[in-house]
């Protein structure tokens, strides 16, 4: 009796081994929490640097000019041939009549973007009646002025080390005082294509290029991927050949993406003769890249459909094809769609294979069809990161923000689909 009681007490009291086990468990948990904290810290750091660099790109500095569209400039019938840069310069000269020396004039002209001339040209071509009138026109400021207004150029450093001269600072302050210089939401960034002038550069071309490319990728890789997955999972006999195919598909999913670019260059461009730098070729290459992902995800979701469903369908007399099409495939579809969306998100962020097929290029015109040359979003980021002008740094971060937004939406959609349609057996 007495003996048992002591044993009981021993059991209740924390033994040395138990304490050790608890400690080990605590340690393990702490490691896990530390790992998560560390990765979250990295993510926050990444987001923070990108946001703090890029947020200013959504604003843009504008200068209001008083432009006299005097008749003498448009004596020529051809409106496109008129000297629009000259018109901008003349307007600046009348606004700052005190500027006389040639050097100062050049600095003065440097305040507004070369885009100002394009804007005046567009205005005249849209409505030739404005010739002969005086208009107040808001034009884009030069990227250096923009950088100054966003405090990315320090006023206090000595003049020789600054891209904005003291005399320019004076003019800018004067413009600000007159209310002729403001910072507005940067619409250009969303409506224009690439440009070498940071203030004119936008991501519309890249977004459209990405859209066309992904459309082709989706149109090809989804049906092919689903068909391959269904055949391999439901119909194919299991023998050495299917084993070989399975190994190859798994291997392909792990192949570095640039290899697909080389393949695309050799087959689609050199052999088929498809035009370089176009969404057709880009879409085909990305199809090759995403196919393994979609097939693997598709097979996994087909596998998760319980065999009882198939047996029941076959039992009531459905054929094999009917079983698959009427019962198995609809049940596996949410999983397949999730896999496809994740594959698409991966394709959206891909640059390396596109390098080989000439999609890493300077393209100003916004693509209108599948066979127009186009860049895609990650390529645009890569190209901007390489430009010498300071203002492209913020554009780069802003483009990354847009790309991240797309990726978050796509991955969110995948999660939503899974949550909504997932069937628990």
């Amino acid at each position, binding site marked *: 009796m007495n003996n048992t009681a002591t044993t009981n007490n021993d059991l209740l009291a924390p033994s040395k081994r138990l304490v050790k086990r608890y400690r080990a468990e605590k340690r393990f948990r702490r490691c896990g929490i530390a790992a998560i904290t560390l990765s979250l810290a990295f993510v926050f750091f990444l987001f923070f640097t990108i946001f703090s660099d890029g947020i200013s790109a959504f604003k843009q500095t504008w200068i209001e000019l008083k432009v006299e569209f005097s008749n003498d400039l448009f004596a020529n019938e051809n409106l496109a041939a008129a000297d629009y840069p000259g018109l901008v310069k003349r307007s600046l000269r009348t606004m700052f009549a005190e500027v006389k020396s040639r050097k100062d004039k050049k600095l003065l002209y440097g305040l507004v973007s070369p885009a100002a001339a394009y804007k005046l040209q567009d205005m005249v071509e849209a409505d030739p009646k404005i010739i002969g009138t005086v208009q107040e026109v808001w034009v884009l400021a030069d990227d250096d002025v923009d950088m100054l207004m966003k405090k990315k150029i320090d006023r206090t450093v000595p003049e020789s080390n600054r891209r904005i001269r003291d005399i320019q600072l004076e003019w800018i302050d004067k413009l600000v005082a007159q209310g002729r210089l403001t910072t507005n939401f940067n619409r250009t960034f969303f409506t224009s294509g690439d*440009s*070498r002038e940071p203030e004119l550069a936008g991501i519309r071309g890249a977004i459209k290029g990405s859209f066309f490319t992904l459309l082709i990728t989706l149109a090809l890789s989804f049906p092919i991927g689903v068909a391959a997955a269904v055949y391999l999972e439901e119909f194919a006999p299991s023998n050495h050949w299917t084993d070989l195919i399975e190994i190859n598909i798994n291997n392909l999913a792990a192949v570095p993406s640039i290899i697909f670019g080389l393949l695309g260059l050799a087959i689609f461009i050199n052999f088929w*003769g498809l035009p370089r730098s176009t969404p057709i070729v880009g879409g085909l290459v990305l199809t090759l890249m995403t196919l393994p992902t979609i097939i693997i995800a598709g097979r996994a979701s087909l596998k998760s459909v319980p065999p009882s469903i198939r047996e029941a369908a076959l039992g009531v007399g459905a054929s094999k094809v009917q079983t698959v099409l009427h019962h198995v495939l609809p049940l596996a579809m949410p999983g397949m769609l999730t896999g496809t969306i994740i594959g698409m998100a991966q394709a959206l962020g891909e640059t390396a294979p596109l390098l080989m097929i000439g999609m890493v290029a300077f393209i*100003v015109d916004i693509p209108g069809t599948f066979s127009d*040359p186009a860049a895609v979003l990650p390529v645009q980021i890569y190209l901007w990161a390489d430009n010498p002008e*300071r203002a492209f740094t913020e554009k780069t971060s802003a483009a990354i923000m847009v790309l991240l937004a797309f990726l978050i939406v796509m991955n969110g959609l995948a999660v939503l689909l899974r949550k909504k349609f997932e069937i628990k057996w």
Partner: protein
Amino acid sequence: MKVKALLAASALSLAMTTQAMAARDYISIVGSSTVYPFATVVAEQYGRTSGAKTPKIESTGSGGGFKLFCGGVGVDHPDITNASRAIKSSEIATCAENGVKDIVEVKIGYDGIVLATSKKTAPLKLTRKDIFLALAKEVPDPDHSNKLIPNPYKTWKDVNPALPDNRIEVLGPPPTSGTRDAFVELAMEGGAKTFDFIKDMKKTDKKMYKKICHTIREDGAYVEAGENDNLIVQKLQANPVAAGIFGYSFLDQNSDVIQGSYIEGNEPTFEAIADGSYPVSRPLFFYVKKAHVDVIPGMKGYLAEFTSNKAWGDDGYLADKGLIPMPVKERDEYAARVAELQTIDME
């Protein structure tokens, strides 16, 4: 049956292609990443003012550009290639083999290569000899015998007592870069030539001579920083001891944070590069396929835009982007060549 389906698929794709190919109505340009920032400005300017389609420009490097350019004549080959060096005779031969017989060479201006440091330190005052001794893999033995030893120098002071006592740490482009080619050719080779026995070697053993002049040390003093020059600029700001190698346009755009080192007493300024007193500068070119000029719409317009004074002139917009213009006489000469489409000698 499978074969039939495959054939049908390729026939379909071919039909699609021919349609797309016949319809190429934009100029396709490839080539040097150094010329890229200048060519893109011209292309954009041309596209926006003429209303024609804007040329498409790929940055493939000079060598890669020639490879594509010399691939053949026809709309699926590029019309123009940019280069940060003159075309090699081997490339001319490849071109000729593939039917590209008439090429027009256009020099567009000069580019200076700078060795820059952070503004936080005093500028380095170097000679090409210092650069060679600091960066070459093998250097002449300091005891004046004509023997080569693995580079022993750790600090700039070791190289030249007049220089600061800082560790040698130079960030620069990888071997695939045209900037690196030009740097070793102009700065390092220029420095190596100051040693008579190396200079003599040029006549006796050219291969060895090239190897000595063009091989950069691999013991960590030279850091390959990738092709992204913005990254080098940022690293220089963080590390005032380091120096970086890049094109003049990056110095021009970032003059508030970095400064060019003096080479043989010359600061890399716009004027010094233009008049040739700054020794490390190279000409930039582009090459035009004459057979395409009348076939691809807009070729003449683009050439005219590039060779106009408002683009490559002394006050042109290319000068604003950091291109060093040619003297007026040279400009006129090349403009005339372009106007007549005078081809280079293919022999």
